[in-house]
């Protein structure tokens, strides 16, 4: 009765996840940290070690990564990616320099070698689009003028993943310089070709996939995605990137339909993925790496705030909006775990998984807080320095009329016609 024990274990895991998710929802938290903690509890050396279902969970986790990236690709159209790339590449470069390098530096400091440095660079570099979009919505800031800036940085990061993941996969596979370069060239050509095809013939692809019957659409999209992901993995380009490119290539009706159909599947398998990552981490290995994780978290909170500030200033946004953009970008989440997960599976550095876990746990909790409080804090410091006035109340229920004279920077734009420094123009 092997299947019985598998069912019991899987049922227990998924039920616990559901309950954890409800707890997270009640306090408006992202469920990701709780899923990770759940995985830790079930894992090796945890409270309830599992055995029978491990194989299924491992496969489920891989499907989870593929679905996460597919849904990310569905969020964007090829046109979105190209316009953002054209308009915002300096912000993307600053983002990379400020946030990837601390991670790489920390890995080298700990003496983990170059491959681990590339992994940790990715972990600290990529913000969590999911967490950030939700936080902006909750704070009622989606209409703010700095929001397009925040979103384009997220788009650029996600697009960078299409290059970063193949490099990482090649490095983890222990490929030499030549093999690595070939992989990178394949990835570049493939990504370029997919973007080109999606821009040119996106409608044709979508028409081929699109179907009125949800069942057929689900099967076609899922089949296509897994097939492409598998081929990409064969070519050493990483399954996740293949799935991402499928998502980009689908647009319009097919994308909308697939989005609503696959959301529940994505939620299930992504949760399984976070649990699997936790399962592979021994809880007792976390305390030793807590200090580096904390240091890395503090440094990369400030570097992300700096990134957002710089990008918003470049887009001609006033000082309040610059701090808001910086604070909003802090949260890291699912992709840091995806990147660390690849490294853990390849087994390069035993402490890497625990460090990434601790880091993401910290930042997924800190991120929403910085999104909310960076601007008030910055203004409070500015006022302290100017030696005036009391500490501000929260900006939650700001009156419609000017409440804080002098709080607005001199270069805050006057009302009519805010420049759309964002996409499209």
């Amino acid at each position, binding site marked *: 009765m092997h299947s019985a024990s598998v069912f019991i274990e899987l049922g227990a895991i998924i039920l616990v996840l559901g309950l954890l998710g409800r707890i997270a929802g009640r306090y408006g938290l992202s469920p990701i940290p709780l899923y990770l903690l759940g995985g830790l509890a079930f894992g090796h050396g945890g409270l309830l070690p599992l055995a029978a279902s491990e194989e299924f969970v491992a496969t489920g986790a891989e499907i989870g990564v593929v679905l996460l990236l597919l849904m990310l690709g569905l*969020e964007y159209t090829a046109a979105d990616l190209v316009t953002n790339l054209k308009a915002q590449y300096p912000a993307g470069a600053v983002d990379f320099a400020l946030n990837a390098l601390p991670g790489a530096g920390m890995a080298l400091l700990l003496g983990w070698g170059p491959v681990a440095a590339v992994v940790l660079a990715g972990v600290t570099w990529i913000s969590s*689009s999911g967490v950030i979009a939700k936080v902006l919505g909750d704070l*009622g800031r989606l209409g703010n*003028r700095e929001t397009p800036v925040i979103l384009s940085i997220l788009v650029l990061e996600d697009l960078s993943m299409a290059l970063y993941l193949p490099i990482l996969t090649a490095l983890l596979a222990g490929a030499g310089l030549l093999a690595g370069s070939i992989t990178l060239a394949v990835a570049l050509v493939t990504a370029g070709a997919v973007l080109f095809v999606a821009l040119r013939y996106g409608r044709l692809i979508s028409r081929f996939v699109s179907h009125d019957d949800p069942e057929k659409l689900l099967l076609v999209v899922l089949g296509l995605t897994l097939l492409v992901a598998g081929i990409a993995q064969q070519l050493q380009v990483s399954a996740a990137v293949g799935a991402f490119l499928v998502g980009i290539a689908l647009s319009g009706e097919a994308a909308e339909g697939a989005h609503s159909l696959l959301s529940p599947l994505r939620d299930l398998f992504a949760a399984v993925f976070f649990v699997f990552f936790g399962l592979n981490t021994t809880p007792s290995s976390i305390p030793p790496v807590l200090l580096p994780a904390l240091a890395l978290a503090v440094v990369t909170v400030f570097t992300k705030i700096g990134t957002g500030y710089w990008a918003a200033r470049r887009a001609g946004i006033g000082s309040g*909006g610059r701090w808001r953009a910086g604070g909003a970008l802090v949260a890291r989440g699912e992709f840091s775990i995806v990147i660390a997960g690849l490294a853990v599976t390849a087994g390069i550095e035993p402490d890497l998984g625990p460090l990434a876990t601790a880091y993401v746990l910290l930042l997924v909790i800190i991120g929403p807080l910085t999104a909310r409080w960076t601007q008030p804090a910055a203004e409070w410091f500015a006022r302290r320095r100017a030696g005036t006035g009391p500490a501000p109340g929260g900006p939650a229920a700001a009156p*419609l009329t000017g409440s804080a004279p002098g709080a607005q920077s001199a270069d805050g734009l006057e*009302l009519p016609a805010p420049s759309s420094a964002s996409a499209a123009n």
Partner: protein
Amino acid sequence: MPIPRVRTTSLPGVGVQYDFTTREQRHLSVIAHRDGSRSLNLYRADDPDACAHSLHLSEGESAALVDALRPAQHSTALLHTTDLGLIAERIPLSGVSYWNGRLLGETRMRTATGASIVAVLRRTGAVPSPTPDFRLAGGDTLIVIGTREGVDAAAAILGRE
């Protein structure tokens, strides 16, 4: 009845934002979320980048609000949006426009933006398919068809003073 120029900004992963500034210099925006819901945003006076109020409306609530706002005969700047990604827009030419009295060919519109000017509306009547030697005048309304980016670029060119 002057129609404000509504700007469109794509918010990748969220939806599309439409915004304009009212005659009273109040800025307001609507976000069309991908799930069909809408957010109506008003901006703070002391920080024009930030929303003072953000009202999230379901599809049904948005429809009710539209009905309440719609005058008996509504004329909108947007003529027609197809899901093929082409839009047609009315773009008014102001009296102080740089193009007042210049030829349509001088705008080099189709070369620069890919958008086409398919008609010019004047008080005296409409001119369909104006040729490049058509002379523009302040107060004209141009019907421009193209991609969203193209029409936005066309509006920027035609807005030159």
